[in-house]
């Protein structure tokens, strides 16, 4: 599914080189739920950007779903992001002027899907996150937890095989954060591959596989037997 081989991302600042990613290799199989954990500056965001096809590595090979994306241009990457990936951001990143439904439709708009079909898919995604009755509201009329669920619906709408969640609970209180996490676990059980980035160890502790990054290198990659009670809560 996701296959990073010997990925380097090097920024030059004057004469000095900064190795944001220093030779990372990582494999994520279909249906996995992986937490990438690291402190700020550890390289986890850069890693996320490369996995999310928002950035290209300086060297190394990245295969997503069997396609080598490490050498793709801007337009091809946009296409890959649209079809293969769904993003969930810490700040939700909904567009304030668009209604909930229009926000969820956005990835479908860029895929060139007809309005009627778009509406149908968007409503289905909203039903899945339990917000089918809020489709005509503006994001500002919803609570933080609801906005995050809208952004999950947006990530789901295009039915991508992989969802990337960047600190999805970071802006939420612990109770709402837990609900969102529970919901992501449910999605994973339903077959979506999820890569979650966090600096919060208590969240990582609940996930079946934890990859720790420090100074641009993978520090540890361990299965987490403690997270076996996956099915305990239903959204």
């Amino acid at each position: 599914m996701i296959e990073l081989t010997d990925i380097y991302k090097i920024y030059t600042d004057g004469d000095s080189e900064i190795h944001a990613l220093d030779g990372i290799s990582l494999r994520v199989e279909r249906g996995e739920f992986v937490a990438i954990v690291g402190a700020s500056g550890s390289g986890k965001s850069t890693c996320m950007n490369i996995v999310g096809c928002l950035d290209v590595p300086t060297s190394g090979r990245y295969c997503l779903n069997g396609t080598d994306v490490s050498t793709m241009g801007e337009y091809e990457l946009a296409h890959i992001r649209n079809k293969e990936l769904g993003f969930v951001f810490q700040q939700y990143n909904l567009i304030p002027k668009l209604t909930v439904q229009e926000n969820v439709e956005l990835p479908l708009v860029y895929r060139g899907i007809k309005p009627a079909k778009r509406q149908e898919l968007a409503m289905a995604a909203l039903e899945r996150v339990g917000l089918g009755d809020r489709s005509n509201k503006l994001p500002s009329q919803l609570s933080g937890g609801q906005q995050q669920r809208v952004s999950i619906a947006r990530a789901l709408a295009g039915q991508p095989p992989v969802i990337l969640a960047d600190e999805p609970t970071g802006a939420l209180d612990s109770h709402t954060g837990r609900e969102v996490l529970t919901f992501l676990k449910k999605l994973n059980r339903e077959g979506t591959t999820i890569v979650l980035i966090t600096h919060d160890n208590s969240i990582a502790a609940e996930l079946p596989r934890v990859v720790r990054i420090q100074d641009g290198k993978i520090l540890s990659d361990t299965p987490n037997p403690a997270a076996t009670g996956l099915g305990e809560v239903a959204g």
Partner: protein
Amino acid sequence: MDIKQAFRLAVKSLLGSKMRSFLTMLGIIIGVGSVIVLVSLVNGMSQDMVSTFESMGTNLISVTVMGRGGNRTVTPDEMQTLVDENPDTIGAMSPSISISGATVKYSSDNVTASCVGVNEFYGEVNNAAVAEGRAIAYMDVEQRARNCVIGTYLVNELFAGADPLGETIRINGESFQVVGVLEETQGGEEGSEDATVLIPYTVAQRLSQTFMVSSYSFSAKNKDTVDAAMDIIDSFLLQKFSSSDAYRVFNQADALTQVNELTGTMTLVLVGVAGISLLVGGIGIMNIMLVSVTERTREIGVRKSLGATPWDILSQFVVEAITTSSVGGIIGILFGIAAAYLAAALMQMSVAISLPAILIAFSVSAIIGVTFGFFPARKASKLNPIEALRYD
């Protein structure tokens, strides 16, 4: 992203901040509006002038004699001989002695009219028919008879529509008997052809105390002999004065061409000025679009992360700029039409709304949207999604 959706989004975004949208459009509104107003008024003016000239007839040839010092001049008799010698080209001739701003009085009523001394061929030369009574006749000229033919404006003003024939009026204090009424040509308005008094030119010579007749009107036999007739008159006068500076021979068609050239130049100048304000309006749009791109950096990042290509972003912002400038253009056109009618009513001018001007103004405003929207849109499309997402 399909274009319909892009327009819908653009309209939504315009309505989202009405005040800002209006101020953005203001430059375009003023620019387009002033083009419409100016072109409409100039058009109206030129149509008025053209219709005036056409009512006078395109066969009309006017001759103005400035003289060349000394006593050398040309007399009405000499001019009449010229007509008689060239029956195939020249139709008729009438001297034209203007006593402008003449005061015409009947009982206690006064009006100002243009008084012209003419001969019996005036009607034929100027396409002016008599509605009642008779025209100035040969005998009036010969006998210096105090007879006059008046226009309908005078009939209405002095006689309140009653029969003026046989009545005596005073022109600049001299008594004249009304023998005829001219047919109405311009609605009987003040200052028009209908506010004319015709008197025998021999009497006009006395009234104005000038014996040299400096102005003649000729009619060509028909439209096709205008140029030939002008050549004949010209060569006659050149022989007489041995200088082409001493007289001027011109035709209504020439005058018409000159009017058209003049109004054409005026239109160009005015449109140039309006064009500058359109340019300023375009820069205003560019400015606001740049602000809008900066404000929506994060939105652009989100859209890119969801799979928007640079082209999608570019077209979104260009469509937004076009929508702004086109809506501004439409408002400007409506505003311009309203303002043109208002100005026309206030200044008693004619308006002629020009469809080509409207179409051009609208296309120009749309083109301005593309031109000035392109740079900000390109900036938006080139934003790095990672930095855009991180932007606060």
